[in-house]
């Protein structure tokens, strides 16, 4: 399964494929990816048309999904981001959610976003 955005808007754009630890693939546009420092560096060091997916062996699909959503939100709203809804909807009392947030923190630190 993969999460894609509206195809028409970005048909002329390049795409980056990311692979989570549990095998899910996430395809995001280069524009959105550039809001992450790591991905920016990655793209500049690679051949532009290369389509090999980057593997993230320590990032779960849930986390990766949140990150992709975040990057797209940032991309659409141009750095103006007060409320990131998926996070707002999480419940601090729930243990699952807390774990999720912790993982998210680590991944975000790694990816610089």
């Amino acid at each position: 399964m993969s999460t894609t955005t509206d195809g028409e808007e970005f048909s002329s754009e390049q795409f980056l494929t990311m692979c989570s630890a549990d095998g899910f693939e996430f395809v995001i546009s280069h524009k959105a990816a550039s809001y992450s420092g790591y991905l920016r560096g990655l793209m500049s060091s690679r051949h532009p048309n290369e389509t090999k997916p980057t593997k993230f062996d320590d990032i779960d699909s849930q986390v990766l999904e949140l990150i992709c959503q975040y990057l797209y939100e940032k991309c659409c709203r141009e750095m103006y981001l007060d409320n990131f809804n998926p996070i707002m909807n999480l419940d601090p009392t729930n243990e699952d959610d807390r774990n999720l947030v912790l993982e998210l923190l680590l991944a975000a630190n790694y990816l610089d976003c």
Partner: protein
Amino acid sequence: MFKKSAPKINAPKSEIIDTTESWTLLFTAIQQIFSNECSNLSYEELYRTAYDLVQQRHGESLYDNVLECLKYRVNTIVKRILKPLKDGDHGLLRDVTTEWENYSLAVGMISNVMMYLNRTVVLNNPDDYSPISALGFILFRENAIKGSEVGDRTRRQVLQLIQKERDGETVDKMLIKGSVNMLNKLSCYEQELEGPFLTSSSNYYANLSQSLVDASSVPEYLRIVKTKLKEEAFRVQYYLLDPTKQKIEQIISEEMITNHLGTIMDSTSSGFGIMLRDDKISDLKTQYNIFAINPSHIKELIKKFRSHVASHGLSFVNDEQITKDPTLFIKNLLDLKRKYKHIVKESFDANPLLSTALDEAFRQFADGTVQSRMAEYLSLYLDSLMRSNEQDQDQTLDDVIDMFMYLKDSDVFENYYKTHLSKRLLSSRNMHQTVESQSCTEKVFVTKLKLECGYQFTSKIEGMFNDVRLSRIAMDQFEKTNKSTLGLDFYVNVLTHSFWPTYDPTTLILPHQLKQCCRAFQEHYDSVHNGRRITWQPNLGDGLVIANYPNGSKYELLCTTSQICILDCFNACEANQVWSEEELSSTTGIPIRDIQRQMTPLCSSRHRVIIKDENGYCWNEEFKHASTRLRIAAISTKETTQQVHQTESKIEMDRKPIIEAAIVKIMKSRKTMYDNQLIESVVTILRPTFVPSPIEIKKRVESLVEREFLERDEKEQSLFRYLA
């Protein structure tokens, strides 16, 4: 978003990483990046290695190691550049730029890989650690450019190339641009290159200007300066940085203009003055644009322009030939104004400072000696303009109004203008025209005057026009009632006393026929307007007489009423009777000196109607002329010195009540005032009309004190109080 069951935290890898192994991996990778063989490297792997090292608290040592790598690399580059000496220094530039480009690419890549360092180590100690990319540049700058010969030799090379280009050779611009970009990235462009560039340019232009300024004329020199400015602008655009443009402009301006300003402005063969004189519009424009770079140059230009215009005008004023003829004088002034106005507009970009300077220059020479005659001359010029009956004088009238604004004492002008206008309005050629078709130029001028000076100034003049119009209507009425009884074509202009100039009362004795007509009109007028008093001024009028000669020819003579009276004397006498001046004077009532004035046109070589000899005047039987209708009346001429004095004293007299009225008005509203304040206020109020002298004002104040309109304060001598 879907929820998985029981997610587990992926704890960070807790294995102790082998630092040596990690570092070796990174080190090899860096070397590969430097030698451009990085296609096999995995960004993720390297990034992760660096990440792990930092997590394991080895961030600082990692940083130091990277720094060492970079430093080593820079030194290698320097050695490589300095080693070969083939191609002399020319190859050096190429080597430097190539090495630099490769190096900066590599540093970029390394910086990407080491990105995590930037967010941890660098962030925590910003004073000691700079981001990797910045670090790379700093090392290059310190060790390669500044720390070794590379910088000096690069600079020398670049300056040499620039000099070659100035001498006319073509050089590789891209090479220079590469070096400039490099220095710019390293933030040492200004210090390393720009400074020395400006110094060498300064020397170059100093020498150039020295050799050129003697060899060429000023316009040529300026054209060369313009070319050089353009050249340098292109140079900056091609391969230097934008801020340099202004600096090099300043240098050229300094070396080529400031140091030779005297020559440019004052050279008698082709300097600024000559260019102004000869209307060299495009050369002046070039000069203006070049001078615009430095504000002090423009100031100098303005100063010289003003003094040039003033001296040019003064040369007219002092030229006897020109000042003799008022029309010529005014025309010259107007041409002068037009010429310089044109220059200001075309060459000096209509700069308002220069327009002001032009005005000031005019005021300078229009003041002083000429001022007293200028009002009169201006009016005379207008007079000739109006009489010439040309259409479309709008521009000229605007110019005349311009001149009028320079006059300090506008009441003098008003006086002359009214005098001349009255002559124009009352002359017989206007009688047969309706007032509407009467020269539109007159009306246009009055309108313009009204715009400039306000309604009050022109109210009397408009009254004069009105009187003429009303007289027309009155005469129509008169003719209807008295048509047959007169036997003459008789026309009277009724003038309202206050509007028109004051005329001396006349002692002219009219011939019998004319007297009858006057009586008839007086009766008619008294019946129409009760309570008005008429004073007859026949010396202002003119008329047509028919001269019947014995040889059968008839001539119609257009002459003044006074001349008609004199001619009438010859009517009633023998053919060859000679009349002396005294006899003529007693018969007609005209004073003797006026007799001469009236007779001169009649005795002139053009129309010798009367012959003058030692005894007196005699009828010329042999008079012949090509046309039957002749105009004899004299045209207005400029006043003799005596007449000017008369006019001046008359105007002084007229001013006295005006000053007094102003004083009373001020004192009435202010009640008490000090004398110097009073003088100031009076001057301010009267300035549009004329500028009264403080002495005159003081005299008027004294006179008012005597007549008990004002009183002095007992305690303070200079305080005045208004007495109701």
